[in-house]
């Protein structure tokens, strides 16, 4: 059911895109704008949840359990009588923070490693890239299970697991694009100006990779949201009573026959955030690419 909503959502977007604006390249900018709108909506909900939610997201009220959506409970209630809208708003916080910090860890460690691997060919590069391959070959879920087996489940460990998984992604992107930049003549010119690999990486390579890395970050953000939901779904993410989208889905699954709203709304929330970041990543890719930008 969630799935059908998704498709309908997309169909509506596209229809709008084609009826309102006939030209194709503004249509791409429309994707970017839609992405920003969806993301800002979720972020706003998360921010509001700090000061106000319709009900206490953690308050159990068995007397009003499994209520269908109504004017009292817009998104209905779950099997403990908790308000689903409130839980989603608080859960958004959690999804955003986990994804954000995990991308931060991935970029913060991966980008310097990638720059190093691009600047120094030979042993250092091989060492960095083969270690990356090793991490890459390891399923993130397995890594999370391992980490939680040692340190116990929790948001922090979910962040670390997803963050570690992001490192090779950023390292690879940075190295790949960095290597081609290193063959440019302005790098030669910088070397003639006496600059070493460190200064060149910081002053020439990194700024020229900026667009690419922003796009990659947006994509990893979307993946991070899904990964967090996945870890929470199997109980390795944020622990109760703190609400989390992934756990809401797992709790809903036994009741999906008679209380479908318990699954639909967290599912749609995940969908919106992932779709939003996906559109931003895609839109920025076009926007920052000089080839597509020039045609505009």
């Amino acid at each position, binding site marked *: 059911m969630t799935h059908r909503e998704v498709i309908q959502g997309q169909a509506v977007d596209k229809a709008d895109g084609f009826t309102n604006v006939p030209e194709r390249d503004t249509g791409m900018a429309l994707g970017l704008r839609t992405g920003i709108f969806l993301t800002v909506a979720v972020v706003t909900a998360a921010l509001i949840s700090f000061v106000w939610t319709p009900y206490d997201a953690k308050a159990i009220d068995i007397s009003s359990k499994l209520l269908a959506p109504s004017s009292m409970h817009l998104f209905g209630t779950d099997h403990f009588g908790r308000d689903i809208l409130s839980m989603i708003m608080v859960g958004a916080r959690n999804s955003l923070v986990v994804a954000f910090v995990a991308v931060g860890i991935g970029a913060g460690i991966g980008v310097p490693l990638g720059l190093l691997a691009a600047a120094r060919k030979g042993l250092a590069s091989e060492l960095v890239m083969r270690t990356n391959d090793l991490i890459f070959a390891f399923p993130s879920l397995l890594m999370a299970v391992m980490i939680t087996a040692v340190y116990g489940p929790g948001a922090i460990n979910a962040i670390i697991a997803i963050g570690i998984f992001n490192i090779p992604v950023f390292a690879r992107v940075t190295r790949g694009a960095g290597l081609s930049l290193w063959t440019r003549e*302005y790098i030669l*010119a910088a070397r003639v100006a006496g600059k070493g690999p460190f200064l060149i990486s910081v002053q020439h390579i990194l700024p*020229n990779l900026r667009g690419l890395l922003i796009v990659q970050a947006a994509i990893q953000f979307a993946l991070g949201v899904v990964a967090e939901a996945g870890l929470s779904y199997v109980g390795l993410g944020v622990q109760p009573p703190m609400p989390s989208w992934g756990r809401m889905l797992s709790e809903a699954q036994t009741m999906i026959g008679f209380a479908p709203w318990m699954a639909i709304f967290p599912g749609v929330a995940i969908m919106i955030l992932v779709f939003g970041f996906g559109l931003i990543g895609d839109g920025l890719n076009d926007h920052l690419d000089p080839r597509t930008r020039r045609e505009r």
Partner: protein
Amino acid sequence: MVLLEINDLNVSIDRTPILNSVSLKLEAGEILGLAGESGSGKTMTAFAIAGLLPGRAEMSGQIVFDGTRLSNASESELCRIRGQDIGIVFQEPMTALNPVMTIGDQVAETVRIHRGVSRREAWQLAQATLDKVGLPSTLFPMDRFPHNLSGGQRQRVAIAIAIVLKPKLLIADEPTTALDVTTQAEILSLFRQLVCDEGIALILVTHDLAVVAETANRVVVMKEGTIVDQGSIADVFQASQKPYVKTLIRNAVHIPTRTSKKIGNIPVLETRNIVREYFGARKLFGRGRVLRAVDGVSVQIYPNENVGLVGESGCGKSTLLRTILGLDRAQAGDVRVFGQKFPPDRHEDMRQLRRRIQVVFQDPFGTFDPRWRVDQIIAENFHLFDLPPTGADARRRVDEILDRVGMQSSDAKRYPHEFSGGQRQRIAIARALITEPSVVALDEAVSALDVSIRAQILDLLADLSDRLGMSYLFVTHDLSVARSITDRVLVMKDGRIVEQGRTEDVFANPSHPYTVRLLGAVPDLDRALSKHPAATQKS
């Protein structure tokens, strides 16, 4: 017989006029040179004839080819004419050939498309044609791929494809610009021979007036989409009344005026027996063949001296330059700057020595970080100072150097893409000069520029060396540049210096056979004109 007639051809792209009432005629069996600087519309004219204008282009006027009006022919008709009656050769042979098809298949393909003959017949015709362009199948089997061939051989394959159907007209767009001079001479003589033997008419599009003068019967000079002058080679090159043509010819043979200076006798830069090797393509087991790019080269450059390092592509001159600049390390031998080893053993001495030797590359745009402003680009070399100037002091120095190379101080805040090619080269020179170097290496620094810009840059370089007292190392394949501005010239071949001496001596009396061959291959405007019948004086 008039083969091609263009009447009042106008072309515009996105409402920007590209060609302005272009009219010309071409006789069968004639070579017409279409000359002009970049942006003059010479390539567009050629493309218009072949019906290869971009889809957005709007065209008016008449093109009549062999009795057919091409200007309103349908695309399918044009497809039949292209290849069949009009053959085309482009500048870059590697990109014009399909890398995964054998050369025989590529030539035969054209035959099969247009003639619908059997595979075998097409193959035989292809073989005969490749033979004709100087690739006999005994030496160059037809199952070779383009990457097995050299640049000149690839261009021969491209020519074979263009002429295999015995077209009436061959259009060659800068066919020799990407090639070495000796290869260029061979390809040009192949063109002359084809015109002579097969009666093909040739339109030779080129920026190089000497190439036109040596090859063509008639010339059309274009500027900004209009024809400035046309006529026989002698008429246009010797007796043209048009100021633009006169300037163009003057710029092509421009020799910057230089005050004679005392050349010092302690070398500022010296290399001793430099050896630089590369490993060739690796075999499955074991290492590949060792390629010795630079083989024991010793060079001295004295204060105030302009030295030319000339040679064809692959001779090792770029590798030598990289070693001199300290971008590559030599396997043997050493580079000395003011008698000190370079790169020095102690890291602290590095910046001080590096300041002394700077470089200007061929493509200035590529050597600028696209995200940096001009002032940042020039100030990058401040890194080499022990106490890099900052703030107002740095700005003043950048302004000074911009002024010195003929730019405005307001240009400092602009980005490289806002400038033309000549201006960019000035910025690159400013960057090299900001450290007050003793030696500036110029790696093909004027090769890619139009003749008028090239003349200006050569003047600028001569002027700067007069005022600042530096030595130049011109690394170039362009012997006319080397001749016009250097005191001493080194001829490099297969990693070795085969001849060196005072420039006028080497050019007047080359002693090494390679130098003789090289000089003979260089298109020379004066020599070419002396072969043409004297101009019929226009009143």
